[in-house]
C-alpha cells in the first residue's frame, strides 16, 4: 500500500509570519516513503474536501513531516487553529511527479514565490553550497524560511516586491542575473503561475532543465476523479494530466500556460 490515510499527531506548531504556520507532524508511515516534491492531503474540521499541502521537510529518523502553510481561506484558517497534541486526518504521501534529485555536486537554482517556497527547502538542503535559492515575498513581514534554505550553505537571494527586505524586485530578475552570471544544471520553481511561466521561459532560453510544482483544486488527491487537470504537452500532443497523480512537479517545458 503506497498511500496511507490515518490520524496523526501535531507535535510542534510555530508561527513563521502573519498567517503562516509551520507544523511538525508525527506520521512515521508517511515519512518513511515520502519524497521531496510530494504533498499530503489534510482534512480541515468542518470542511468537505481535503487541503493539499506540500511536504517541506521529511525526517525519517524521527518519523516526522514538516509542512508550512498560509491561511488563505476557511479551511487553512481551521488548520491554523489546531494545537500541539491535536490529531490531524491526513492522506499521503501523494504525488507521482516529484523533484528529480541530481547529484549534489550539480549546480541548482531554486526559485520560490511566497507560499511556493516551502516545498523547495529539501532541495536547498540537498544541493547545499551548490544551490542558489532565490526566494521572493510581498514584503519583509511575509519573509519565511531564509535560515532553512541557508542551512547547508546555499546562497540565498531574498527579494521583496517593495524592497523592504533583500533586493527590491521580482525573483525572475534575480534569476536572469544568476543564469547570466554562471553555470546552472537545473532549475526548480514553485509559486504563482505568472512567475512559473516566466521562469519556464528563461529556462528554455538558457536550455536548462526546469521542474515546477503546480497547484490545482483537488477532489480525491490520488488520480481517481480527474478534477485537478493541467494542460500538458507530451509526445507531441496536448492533454490534460492531473496535478495530484502526474504532478504536482512537472517538467516546465511540458506545461502549457493559459493566456
Amino acid at each position, binding site marked *: 500500500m503506497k498511500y496511507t490515510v490515518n490520524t496523526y499527531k501535531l507535535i510542534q506548531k510555530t508561527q513563521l509570519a502573519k498567517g503562516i504556520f509551520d507544523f511538525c507532524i508525527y506520521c512515521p508511515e508517511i515519512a518513511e516513503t515520502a519524497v521531496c516534491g510530494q504533498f499530503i492531503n489534510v482534512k480541515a474540521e468542518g470542511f468537505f474536501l481535503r487541503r493539499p499541502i506540500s511536504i517541506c521537510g521529511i525526517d525519517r529518523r524521527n518519523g516526522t513531516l514538516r509542512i508550512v502553510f498560509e491561511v488563505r481561506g476557511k479551511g487553512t484558517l481551521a488548520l491554523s487553529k489546531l494545537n500541539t497534541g491535536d490529531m490531524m486526518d491526513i492522506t499521503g504521501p501523494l504525488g507521482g511527479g516529484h523533484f528529480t534529485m541530481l547529484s549534489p555536486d550539480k549546480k541548482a537554482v531554486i526559485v520560490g514565490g511566497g507560499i511556493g517556497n516551502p516545498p523547495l527547502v529539501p532541495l536547498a538542503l540537498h544541493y547545499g553550497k551548490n544551490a542558489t535559492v532565490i526566494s521572493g515575498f510581498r514584503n519583509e513581514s511575509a519573509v519565511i524560511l531564509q535560515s532553512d534554505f541557508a542551512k547547508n550553505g546555499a546562497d540565498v537571494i531574498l527579494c521583496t516586491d517593495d524592497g523592504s527586505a533583500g533586493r527590491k524586485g521580482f525573483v525572475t530578475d534575480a534569476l536572469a542575473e544568476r543564469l547570466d552570471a554562471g553555470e546552472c544544471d537545473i532549475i526548480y520553481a514553485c509559486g504563482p503561475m505568472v512567475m512559473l511561466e516566466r521562469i519556464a521561459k528563461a529556462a528554455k532560453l538558457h536550455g536548462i532543465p526546469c521542474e515546477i510544482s503546480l497547484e490545482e483544486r483537488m477532489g480525491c488527491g490520488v488520480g*481517481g*476523479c480527474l478534477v485537478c487537470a493541467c494542460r500538458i504537452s507530451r509526445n507531441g500532443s496536448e492533454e490534460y494530466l492531473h496535478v495530484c497523480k502526474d504532478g504536482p512537479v512537472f517538467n516546465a517545458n511540458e506545461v502549457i500556460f493559459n493566456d
Partner: protein
Amino acid sequence: MTDRLAVDFCGVRFKNPVIPASGTFGYGREFEEFYPLSTLGGISVKGTTGTKRTGNLPPRIAETPSGCLNSVGLQNPGIDHFIAEELPYLKTKELAVIANIAGSTADEYEEIARKLDSTDVDMIEVNISCPNVKAGGAAFGVSCQGAAEITKIVRSATKKPVMMKLSPNVTDIAEIARACESEGADAVSLINTLLGMRIDIRTRRPVLHNNTGGLSGPAVFPVAVRMVWQVANAVKIPVCGMGGISTWEDAVEMMMAGARIVQVGAAIFADPMAPVKIIDGLSEYCQANDINISEISGTVRPW
C-alpha cells in the same frame, strides 16, 4: 458471514452492495494503494465515451457545504482504450464491473454498448444525466422521450444488463424511471449530480470554469433518498441508489428507501476508506440484527 452482504442485482452477483460511483474512483487502480479492489462489491468505472475526451477547462471542482460541485465533463480515454487497457486489469479482480457510458448522440451510445456487448463487463450503466457536457448527457435524461430513446437503442445493442442512470434535475423522476423501464431497462441508478454554481466573490467569476457543475456529497443525501423512494415505488426493476452516502447508516437508509445496491461517490474525496468502512459497518449491522442485507431493501414504512 460475508454472505449476509451478497446481493443479486439483475442476475449479477455483488458480494456486497457497495460500489464506488462512476467518476470518483477512476478505474480503481489508484485506490489499490489503499485497499484491494476485491474488498468492494463492484466498481462503476469513469464514464466512457465513443472516443477520447479531454473534458472541461479547470478549475473543475468547488467546495460547498457538506459537498462539492464538479465539472469534469467526461474526460476519458474512450471505449476502445477502456476495453483494451482497463477492463482486462479489472477482470483480474474479484468484483462486479459496471461500465458507465455516455455519448453526445444516440448513435454514440449504441456504438459503445455494442462494443461492450462482446466483453465481459458485468453490466452497463448508461449515463443520461451528466450536467457537464454541452451535447448529449443530461439533455437525454431530463425528458421521458429522451430517456426512452436512449434506453431503447442501448437495449437493442446489447444483451448485458442495462442500468439507466437518472438525473435529479427534473420535475418528476419517477416518470423518467418508468419511461426507461418500459423500454426494457433492467435497472435504474440514481441520482446523478444536482446542477449548482459557486461564485468567487473576490474575482466575481464562477469558481468552475464551466460556470455550473454537479453537486454531490452528503448535502444531496435527503434529495437522493426521496428520489430513490419515489422511483422504487414507481417501477418494478431494481434500483441502485446513490447521492451523498458517506456512512453505513446512510447506506442502510438508502436501501430501506428502496435501493438494492448503492454507490458511494464524493464521500471518497473526504475519506478514501469510506467504501470499506461502509462495508464493515453493514457487515456488523447484519450480524447484530441477524439479517441478510438484501432483506432491508424497500422496508421503510411510510406514515
